[in-house]
């Protein structure tokens, strides 16, 4: 006898992710899922991000690793709630892990939840965590053909960060080629060049984050019946302009130019 099933193999994950997304939609919380190969600089970027957002937004971090709480230790220094998810073998985060650990870092006034996925370019692509955006990191030490080798994540991400740009001078990484490859897999995706080491390009990354936060709040207001923007663009820009990371980045640029 034939039985029609048509059931998604990822149904459990999809159900929980939908539940999370709905709750975050209601609370106007922006959620970002950072994905990269091991060691591309997710934690280093988050350190700089938290440093830059201190005093601006209410931020929380969930960080997934197969073993150790090292990354959470590094991130806990900035005064925001951080929770390590040790997956003990699982090479990606799943929505149920996020749901289980969320209450450890959640705050009533939370604006932004940053999720650092397990270092892996493959399966995190398929596991929805209810996020607004997947952010993919590609470091300059990995080779400009990485997007061709692991195209799916570069296609799915909303923005790509080219990290460790301070190392470009020592490498023969071809930025134009990397951009060309990304442009075929995901035409129009913004590509931001950053260095967590020097702070270069961090202003644009923080701005991108702020815009996502602002948009989510605005979108919610509009459906509520049109109050004024929760976080108007001008304010977003003002916030970005005065973040410590931005100032440092500008200073570094000036020094470089001299």
């Amino acid at each position, binding site marked *: 006898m034939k*039985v029609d*099933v048509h059931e998604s193999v990822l149904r459990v994950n999809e159900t929980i992710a939908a539940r999370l997304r709905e709750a975050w939609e209601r609370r106007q919380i922006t959620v970002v899922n950072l994905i990269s190969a091991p060691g591309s600089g997710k934690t280093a970027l988050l350190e700089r991000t938290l440093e830059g957002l201190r005093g601006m937004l209410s931020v929380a971090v969930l960080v997934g690793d197969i073993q150790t*709480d090292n990354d959470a230790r590094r991130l806990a220094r900035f005064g925001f709630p951080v*929770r390590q998810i040790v997956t003990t073998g*699982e090479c990606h985060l*799943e929505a149920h892990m996020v749901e289980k650990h969320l209450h450890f870092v959640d705050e009533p006034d939370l604006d932004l939840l940053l999720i650092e996925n397990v270092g892996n370019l493959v399966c995190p692509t398929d596991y929805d965590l209810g996020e607004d955006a997947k952010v993919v990191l590609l470091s300059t030490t990995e080779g400009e053909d990485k997007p061709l080798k692991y195209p*799916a994540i570069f296609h799915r991400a909303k923005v790509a960060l080219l990290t460790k740009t301070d190392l470009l001078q020592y490498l023969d990484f071809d930025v134009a080629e990397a951009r060309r490859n990304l442009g075929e897999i995901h035409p129009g995706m913004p590509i931001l060049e950053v260095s967590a080491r020097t702070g270069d390009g961090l202003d644009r990354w923080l701005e991108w984050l702020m815009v996502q936060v602002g948009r989510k709040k605005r979108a919610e207001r509009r459906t509520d019946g049109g109050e004024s923007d929760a976080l108007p663009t001008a304010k977003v820009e003002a916030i970005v302009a005065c973040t410590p990371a931005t100032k440092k980045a500008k200073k570094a640029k000036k020094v470089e130019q001299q």
Partner: protein
Amino acid sequence: MHELGLAEEIIRVADREAERAGASRVLLVDITVGQLMQVEVDSLLFLLGIVREPSPYTVGTTFEAITEPARLHCRSCGETWNMGGWVFLCDSCGSADVQTLSGGRLEVTDMEVEIDDDRETEVPVEGDAPRRGWEPRPRAAIGGEVPIEGQERTAREKAESRGLGVGGP
């Protein structure tokens, strides 16, 4: 990399559907894998051969994977084609306004099951009959975890989370 978890989920779905249909065993499971999904079909089929073991329904089952091609559609010129490499620019006009029509599916599509009436005409295979009251394994038993909702956060936990928290999956 995550094919083991997927294989286990497929067995759970097959078990549940077999039980629902009042079947004695599952002969065939058709799985659809979209071209855009990060699934290694060979690994998945290999692992299905291993994880079906404890289930009486899927002991002798054949698993087949069908690839769902990624169909792309250009909104500028109207062209529709199957994705070759991972290029999302229009084949004919070069436009970047390309829409994905399919290729994201990962599902148990259908199954061929044997119900008890059919069995009478066949030679029973030893150890093939389902035990009564047999339950498909819960997620927790195979490494995952049962989803937890709305856990209350204690004051201590809350204080701890201000600094650093660590927990299992």
